[in-house]
């Protein structure tokens, strides 16, 4: 127990020292047009906390600007692809612009508070600043393409969980490289690194 504690202490001391050293060595004048001024912990992680969080797979739960009820929309017979139009066509499923929302909500349920919020964005000429739920950390350098997966018959819920029961989308499936590779191996899809990492 004591050993464990000492080990943890040593780890944090080393981390903090490295962090300070690196940030001193690398900080550069701000007016230089050349890049790089923020402090960093490791190449991939700007801070210790950031590194720890990613190692443990902690992600902050996104707070959406509008409490969008997926369940109600699906219950009303709106399929995923009606709004996430890109999913069968290209890499990105896409989150619709508020123009699409307003095609229905100009008339439907236009008195509800959340719908009024959408209308507010729409009328100001701006879009709803939706927050990402899934997606990969930039340091993973993964380029995921939805379309081939849909064509291969992978169900949306395989990676996104059962959205029929969700209001705002939540991270229901822990997506990591093992998760991807498990499926790729089972389906005999390519497991070459550059299939996804580029």
């Amino acid at each position, binding site marked *: 127990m004591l050993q464990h504690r000492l080990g943890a202490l040593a780890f944090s001391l080393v981390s903090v020292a490295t962090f300070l050293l690196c940030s001193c060595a690398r900080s550069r004048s701000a007016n230089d047009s050349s890049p*790089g001024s923020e402090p960093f912990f490791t190449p991939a992680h700007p801070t210790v906390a950031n590194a720890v969080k990613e190692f443990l797979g902690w992600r902050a739960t996104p707070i959406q600007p509008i409490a969008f009820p997926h369940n109600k929309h699906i219950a009303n017979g709106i399929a995923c692809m009606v709004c996430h139009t890109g999913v069968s066509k290209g890499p990105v499923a896409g989150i619709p612009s508020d123009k699409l929302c307003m095609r229905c909500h100009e008339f439907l349920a236009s008195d509800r508070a959340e719908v009024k919020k959408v209308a507010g964005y729409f009328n100001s000429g701006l879009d709803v600043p939706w927050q990402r739920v899934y997606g990969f950390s930039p340091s993973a350098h993964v380029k995921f393409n939805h379309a081939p997966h849909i064509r291969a018959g992978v169900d949306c819920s395989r990676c996104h969980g059962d959205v029929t029961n969700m209001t705002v989308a939540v991270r229901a499936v822990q997506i990591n490289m093992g998760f991807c590779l498990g499926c790729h191996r089972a389906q005999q899809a390519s497991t070459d690194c*550059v299939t996804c990492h*580029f």
Partner: protein
Amino acid sequence: MSHCWGMAVDLDRCTGCGACVIACQAENNVPTVGEEAAQKSRTMHWIRIERYYEGEFPNPRVRFRPVLCQQCDNAPCEPVCPTYASYHTSEGLNGQVYNRCIGTRYCANACPYTVRTFNFFNPVWDKPLHLQLNPEVSVRQIGVMEKCTFCIQRIKASEIQAKAENRALREGEPVPACVQSCPPKALVFGDLNDPDSEVSRLARSPRGAKLLSELGTQPKITYLQRDSWDGPNS
């Protein structure tokens, strides 16, 4: 049939204009580093045009040579990587897996063509210049080695498209950004496994040579030597 992507560079066509350099920079999110870093040779271009003078005034000559990753079959960069970040892909390219890279820079030391560039800083695009970034290519951060990928994102996109249409890839598909832009068509890209492809035809040219061929790296890029004029029909 699996593909073996290769390139031919016809030095008799190349004019040294630099269109390929910017095409690559735009396609692959290659950052600019600024004057200070440029002075320390820390520019990030994946393709460069070497310029060599020959002779002196009044009879000087210049040779231009676009140099990019040679995608060696026997690549010196691969075995030295302690994390297998540089590795040989199933299609024979020299892959670089950024999330494996821990920045030892052994590969850059091993590469005789000095085509690998290292991110000494986190790249910065002054807003709104970041809107130009290609979403199909990742943005590499500090501490990561990077290099020409033969526009792997274009290769993958073409393969996915061909598969969706249930057909084989056609000649002239995919095209890396540098090849696409080259005005005098000095750069030619294609499948070396297809003996009828233009790149295979050019690779067999008597003017063809490999860069530093004596090292035995077996590059997939063939350089076609510049010709000279000695009269008609030369």
